[in-house]
């Protein structure tokens, strides 16, 4: 994208379509096909929509798809030059990673790279630089590489197929924001069979597509020619890389990070000699990426730990983009590359030395000098001198630094960059420097008293403000102050005259504080102007002559001040802070005038803040100072402590309101209230409007005039108030200028927009360029999305515009180092192992830590076990997670959210579901991706990534619960109340559970009432037995049985272990596997222990005894009350039958006759019935046989009929057909 913006004007060569050859034929065929398809559509109506509902549905679906395509626009906050894009080349071992890098480097720079170690920066185009990094073959290296990759080239052995590494890396990439990915198939020359090759390619491509997205680019490298990949294919690959766009990734745009391409140990050799294992000081070099880096930021060095930066300096770009002159392509001279760890470029980097390689790369030096020539205009060197200079530029500082660092360290200056001092102390330039410093020192000495006075006074003045003891003067004071302020802004009247005036005022207002404070600065400033201007000049000259990377203004600011500070310190040790503060004042005063107010606000506080920082850093020093304080008079102590702030002030009341009723003007008077007339709508609107426009106009002027040296501007400011009308013309001009600038800005923006979307119509763009339309937002805000984009773009333009106004030093303080800068970070107290086991093949990643990310706490994540990992994960088994820049081992507890929002603990992760995982560790902001692995060893067969997750929220307290069942047994049962034992262990515990719901196994519900009284529950006590605690009286909805078991179901908090263990993989040999806490299973395996089994948990065949029920007993009283029907009537069995039963019956003769007759009659009747039945049976059978016969006949007849009918039909049909044919 950047490329295009540069060459926007130039016309491209038109595309020539082929008229012959294979592609032309193919195209013709396609055309034919299209036409055919058009013809085929016979029934166009069939495809027109018929249903309203369906059309609506289709439409809504289309809209939804459209919306899903959109992403929330992210603001790209990189304002500086783009840093080189990192191309990570990844693949399983022996797949050709280094060879690919070598061939690519050769393609870009025409240099042969003997060995690929560390990042290799090259200039690939006019607007683009690339940094190639080979991804190490262990999981740690892969995780780190995924965090800084802008483009990942996945190398795949075509002859073998995909390997797990590729998929692991893809997963890692996805978790840490998905950068661009391109697959490269190698080893394709191993296929002899063309068809097989084609099929394999197809298969691999489709597999690749399922993993990323359909149409993902997979590149084929067909084989080796002279041990290198074919030139044509590499050329194509390079072209693909050069047109690639890199979308911003949310984690990276919010965190600064640096991929280290140079690394040095700057510990004083003495210290190392004394103790080989002492903590080291290291410097790290690399391009700043992501977002701006402020000086106070803490950083995380991947695999080492968190450190605060001891120093940050911006260096000149070692591999700069070619100058922006308009020309096609890159010249050979501009094809730079930089790879200090690989032993190429201009430096050979070794663990403890730097070798300069001259003979091979003269080209580059001369180039550098050319660059230098363009930048330092007026210095005309001849070639030889330039060469020497350029050699000095690059090399000297480094080895010098190595030497000098110890010197400066012994002089005990913990927080500054060593180089600057180093250079200043440098032998040959020393006299000059001393001369330069002299005036400063002199100034310092006489400024001393001034300063202290001024501090007190300013403090007093603050107090005055609040108390307003001298209100009468207040107004005047203000007025005069203003005028003086204006004078400052002029800042250009000749020095001597003003000096006189100032002195006068100082004398005159000996009692007046604030003014003097300002003038104190003014004096500073003025004195310096004479002296320091030369100094500046000299220094800049020196810098230029040195021309070292540190020479530019951007970094010289800080170094400069520090350097001065150091110098002054030697004069007066006790006033270290003052001198520092002063130095920064001096330095700033020379920069620009209107930062005066900033000095007022921050100049003082900077000393205090430094003090606090120092205190934090080392307590011992602090104590010392305390001791000192102890013997000092109180007032003095206070003064010394808070140079800037007044001593008594530290306990001032915290009031935002500071109105003084006593110094009010009389607003009833006309001239008084007329003075604010223009601030009201009733006043002069044009004047009111001018008030607001003034600012822009002024800044414009400032920009144009640049320095305050200009006499005219000052005059102008002076006359502003007196006659506005005379300045009207000027202001109008200014307005025009601003208008013009706005125009330009808008045009740029439009261009940018159209470029990004590609959807905007070109006419519009031209319109805007003509200045026809300003309000694009109103013109074509087709939706919310566009509006959002617009807003973001506007904000960005505003930011750029506002930051442009500032000078370099202030900007650095305000926004920090910009992205794309080449930085040198100094880190102190790094474990020596980092040096000892440093391996350039494992690039170091330094990531900035955001707000609140250094704190530790519980994080709740939404986690899913990876479906390729074979086992489920067990709670509290240590896993290694990678979040943000960090990698650490932690012990998660898994949970799932119940419907009522409760987080229920899980012993194992669910099989195919997301679950919650809670663990302890350094906090990361919500929505950050998390990747988990179990062990880091390389010789694992399976898939190493065990789970992926993202952070939901963080707390200080874990809120996971698990179910607990308390079991008890009744020991005494009343009616519906029972005393339950064994459920609780103490009466206190019972009290805790009062009112809790309980249940028996049979389902009778109840409630815990209270701890049982001892007398009832524990009879033995009365009998002298031991009283038993923890018996609870419970009431149930029904009477329970003694055989019932009573449960109390409750939830108990689960503790999440407060454990995390940062992975210190950079502090040990790379081939060794990092070993942290082991899982339980691993420990068991090691110690040969069996899995403990709870016998009660084993399943056994269930034996159920036949249950014997007691007979139902109805109480007598109850029985008596029952009605007769309900009374039990089962008369008990008697042993002896009743008398009635036992008695024999003797019939009378008549009776006997009757009885016999009845019997006979019944017999006859029975016989008759039997006969009738038989007859009926026979009859039925006859009928059935008859019916069956009939049926058969009927069926036969029917069939014949049917046959006849079919025959006739057939005939008819045949006739018809014949007819038709005939």
């Amino acid at each position: 994208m950047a490329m295009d913006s540069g060459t926007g004007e130039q016309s491209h060569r038109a595309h020539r379509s082929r008229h012959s050859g294979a592609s032309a034929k193919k195209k013709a065929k396609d055309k034919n096909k299209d036409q055919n398809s058009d013809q085929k559509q016979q029934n166009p109506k069939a495809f027109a929509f018929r249903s309203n509902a369906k059309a609506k549905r289709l439409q809504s679906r289309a809209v939804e798809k459209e919306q899903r395509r959109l992403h929330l626009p992210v603001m790209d906050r990189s304002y500086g030059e783009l840093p080189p894009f990192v191309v990570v080349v990844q693949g399983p071992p022996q797949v050709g990673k280094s060879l690919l890098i070598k061939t690519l480097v050769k393609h870009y720079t025409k240099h042969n790279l003997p060995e690929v170690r560390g990042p290799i920066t090259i200039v690939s185009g006019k607007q683009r630089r690339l940094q190639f990094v080979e991804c190490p073959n262990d999981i740690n290296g892969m995780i780190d590489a995924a965090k800084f990759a802008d483009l990942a080239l996945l190398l795949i052995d075509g002859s073998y197929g995909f390997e797990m590494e590729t998929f692991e890396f893809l997963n890692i990439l996805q978790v840490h924001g998905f950068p661009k990915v391109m697959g490269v198939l190698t080893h394709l020359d191993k296929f002899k069979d063309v068809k097989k090759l084609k099929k394999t390619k197809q298969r691999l491509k489709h597999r690749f597509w399922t993993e990323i997205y359909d149409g993902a680019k997979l590149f084929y490298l067909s084989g080796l020619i002279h041990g290198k990949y074919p030139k044509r294919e590499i050329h194509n690959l390079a072209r693909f890389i050069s047109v690639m766009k890199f979308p911003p990734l949310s984690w990276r745009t919010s965190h600064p990070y640096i991929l280290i391409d140079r690394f040095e140990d700057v510990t004083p050799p003495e210290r190392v000699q004394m103790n080989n294992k002492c903590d080291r000081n290291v410097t790290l070099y690399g391009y700043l990426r992501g977002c701006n880096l402020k000086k106070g930021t803490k950083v995380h060095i991947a695999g080492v730990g968190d450190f605060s930066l001891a120093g940050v300096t911006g260096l000149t770009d070692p591999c700069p983009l070619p100058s922006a002159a308009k020309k096609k392509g890159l010249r050979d001279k501009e094809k730079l590359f930089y790879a200090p760890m690989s032993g190429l470029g201009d430096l050979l980097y070794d663990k403890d030395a730097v070798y300069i390689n001259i003979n091979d790369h003269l080209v580059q030096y001369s180039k550098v000098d050319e660059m230098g020539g363009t930048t330092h205009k007026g210095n005309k060197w001849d070639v030889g001198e330039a060469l020497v200079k350029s050699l000095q530029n690059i090399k000297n500082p480094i080895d010098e630094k190595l030497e000098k660092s110890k010197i400066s360290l012994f002089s005990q200056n913990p927080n500054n960059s060593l180089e600057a001092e180093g250079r200043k102390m440098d032998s040959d330039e020393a006299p000059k420097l001393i001369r330069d410093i002299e005036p400063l020192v002199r100034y310092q000495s006489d400024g001393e008293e001034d300063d202290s006075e001024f501090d007190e006074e300013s403090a007093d003045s603050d107090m005055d403000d609040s108390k307003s003891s001298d209100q009468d003067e207040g107004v005047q004071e203000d007025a005069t102050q203003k005028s003086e302020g204006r004078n400052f802004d002029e800042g250009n009247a000749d020095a001597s005259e003003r000096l006189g005036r100032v002195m006068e005022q100082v004398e005159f207002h000996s009692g007046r504080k604030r003014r003097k404070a300002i003038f104190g600065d003014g004096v500073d400033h003025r004195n310096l102007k004479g002296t320091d201007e030369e100094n500046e000049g000299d220094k800049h000259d020196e810098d230029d002559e040195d021309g070292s990377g540190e020479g530019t203004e951007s970094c010289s600011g800080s170094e400069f001040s520090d350097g001065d500070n150091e110098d002054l310190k030697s004069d007066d040790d006790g006033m270290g802070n003052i001198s520092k503060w002063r130095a920064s004042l001096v330095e700033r005063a020379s920069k620009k005038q209107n930062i005066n107010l900033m000095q007022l606000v921050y100049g003082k506080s900077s000393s205090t803040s430094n003090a606090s920082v120092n205190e934090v850093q080392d307590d011992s020093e602090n104590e010392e100072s305390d001791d000192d304080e102890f013997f000092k008079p109180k007032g003095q102590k206070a003064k010394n402590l808070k140079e800037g702030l007044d001593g008594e002030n530290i306990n001032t009341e915290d009031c935002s309101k500071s109105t003084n009723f006593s110094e009010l003007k009389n607003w009833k008077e006309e001239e008084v209230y007329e003075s604010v007339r223009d601030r009201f709508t009733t006043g002069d609107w044009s004047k009111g409007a001018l008030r607001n426009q003034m600012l822009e106009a002024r800044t414009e002027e400032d920009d144009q005039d640049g320095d305050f040296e200009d006499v005219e501007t000052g005059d102008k400011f002076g006359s502003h108030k007196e006659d506005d009308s005379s300045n009207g013309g000027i202001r109008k001009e200014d307005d025009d200028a601003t208008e013009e600038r706005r125009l330009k800005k808008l045009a740029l923006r439009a261009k940018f927009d159209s470029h990004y979307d590609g959807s905007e119509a070109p006419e519009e763009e031209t319109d805007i360029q003509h200045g026809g339309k300003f309000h694009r937002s109103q013109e074509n805000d087709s939706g919310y999305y566009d509006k959002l984009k617009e807003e973001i773009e506007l904000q960005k333009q505003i930011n750029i515009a506002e930051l442009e106004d500032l000078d370099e030093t202030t900007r650095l303080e305000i926004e920090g180092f910009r992205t794309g800068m080449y930085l040198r970070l100094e880190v102190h107290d790094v474990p020596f192992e980092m040096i000892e086991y440093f391996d350039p093949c494992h690039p170091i990643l330094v990531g900035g830590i955001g707000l609140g990310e250094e704190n530790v706490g519980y994080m709740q994540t939404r986690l899913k076990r990876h479906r390729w990992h074979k086992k489920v994960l067990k709670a509290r088994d240590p896993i290694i997670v990678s979040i943000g820049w960090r990698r650490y081992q932690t012990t998660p507890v898994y949970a799932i959210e119940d419907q009522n929002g409760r987080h229920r603990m899980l012993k194992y992760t669910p099989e195919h579901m997301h679950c919650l995982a809670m663990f302890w560790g350094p906090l990361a902001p919500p929505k950050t991706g998390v990747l988990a692995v179990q062990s880091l060893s390389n010789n694992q067969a399976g898939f190493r990534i065990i789970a992926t997750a993202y952070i939901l929220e963080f707390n200080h307290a874990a809120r996971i619960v698990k179910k607990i069942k308390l079991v008890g047994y009744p020991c005494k049962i009343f009616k519906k109340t029972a005393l339950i034992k064994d459920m609780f262990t103490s009466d206190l515990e019972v009290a805790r559970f009062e009112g809790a719901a309980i249940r028996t196994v049979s389902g009778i519900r109840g409630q815990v009432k209270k701890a049982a009284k001892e007398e009832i529950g524990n009879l033995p006590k009365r009998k002298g037995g031991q009283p038993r605690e923890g018996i609870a009286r419970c009431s149930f909805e029904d009477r329970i049985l003694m055989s019932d078991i009573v449960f109390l179901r409750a939830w108990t908090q689960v503790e999440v272990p407060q454990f995390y263990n940062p992975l210190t993989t950079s502090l040990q040999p790379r081939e060794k596997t990092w070993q942290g806490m082991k899982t339980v299973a691993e420990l068991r395996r090691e110690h040969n222990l069996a899995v403990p089994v709870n016998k009660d948990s084993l399943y056994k065949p269930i034996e159920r005894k036949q249950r014997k029920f007691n007979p139902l007993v109805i109480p007598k009283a109850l029985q008596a009350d029952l009605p007769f029907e309900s009374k039990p009537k089962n008369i008990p069995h008697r042993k002896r039958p009743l008398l009635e039963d036992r008695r024999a019956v003797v019939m009378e003769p008549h009776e006997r006759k009757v009885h016999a007759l009845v019997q006979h009659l019944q017999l006859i009747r029975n016989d008759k019935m039997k006969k009738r039945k038989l007859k009926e049976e026979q009859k039925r059978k006859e009928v059935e046989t008859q019916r069956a016969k009939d049926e058969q006949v009927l069926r036969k007849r029917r069939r014949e009929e049917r046959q006849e009918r079919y025959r006739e039909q057939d005939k008819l049909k045949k006739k018809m057909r014949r007819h038709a044919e005939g």
Partner: protein
Amino acid sequence: MGKITYTKLKGSQNMRQRLLLATLKSTPILIEDIHADDTLPGLRPHEISLLHLFEKLTDDCVVEINETGTKLKYKPGIIVGGSNMVHDCGLTRAIGYFLEPLILLGLFSRKPLAIILKGITNDSKDPSVDTFRSTTFPMLKHFGVPSEGLKLEIKSRGVSPHGGGEVHLSIPNVQQLTATMWTDEGMVKRIRGEAFTTRVSPQLGNEMIYAARGIFNSLLPDVYIASDYRKRLETGSGNSPGYGISLVAETTSGCCISADTTISYTRGEEAEDIEGEDKKEMIPAADVGERIASVLLEEIEKGGVVDSTHQGLLFLLCALCPKDVSKVRVGKLSPYGIETLRQIKDLLDVQFVIKPDPSTGTVILKCWGSGMKNLSRKTT
């Protein structure tokens, strides 16, 4: 793991900002020498109350105070917020003292904040609750805070000696603020205000209003000052008598400039310390009205998009923006504003570019936001 490095600070000055910034940035701080040289050393009651308030709003924050109360260790927790909270602000400082940090805490809390504050609603030292409603809330709009959730109800007014006021405050939470370019101060188009009396004759209120209007009459016709007279306890009068007035000037560009004051009996012990306070009681209502109108005019004369009272809050809001440039214009920097700028630099590492604009006597401040985000809000 267990080692905590504290940022060391001294003195009780700017306790509010220090605690607030430490909480937002979640850095532990250690404050020493709190009123160490006073006859009554240690934390003041309102400072303790403030700490209680912070404890209430955050989760797992640790406050350690040494025996004399001169040393304070504060380890912030996560800002939780939530509703149904009650805080008694005590009688040493007004509710306005607590509101300033509370607003920012509420914006960056996990759940929207709804809290009942009890104590002194109007005071001469701190901005009154009326000012918060009329000036501070519109100010937040410039930083992208939705105005729906912002609410401040005055249930009852309490003035100095015995308090008894109650306000219901609710603040929405935001993901992040938005940077603002707020330099157009506009022209004053109307003046609004509210005069109140509690347990005194409403006539005093009318006098104040009349007097204040008298000052503005020559400048602007659109002046309307509402009256809020509470005589009895049932109408929300609080426990002590007093009267006061707060005025707001609204400009064409949507800036609000306010001034307020309250007259009431002071507490017995304070009266001994400060003689000025006694005098204040003598001020008749008409004078109060005139004075406060004059104060407002002075604030307007100073220029800037906010009045001097709100400078601190304005700077804090700018510093808490995402990593974009904010630009604001204020009148003369107030001492409180300067202190706030220093605290912001010390604790948040955000520095402002301060440019005077001599032609208007205003100051333009620019800053690059700290990139603060509400991290405690749960993602779905």
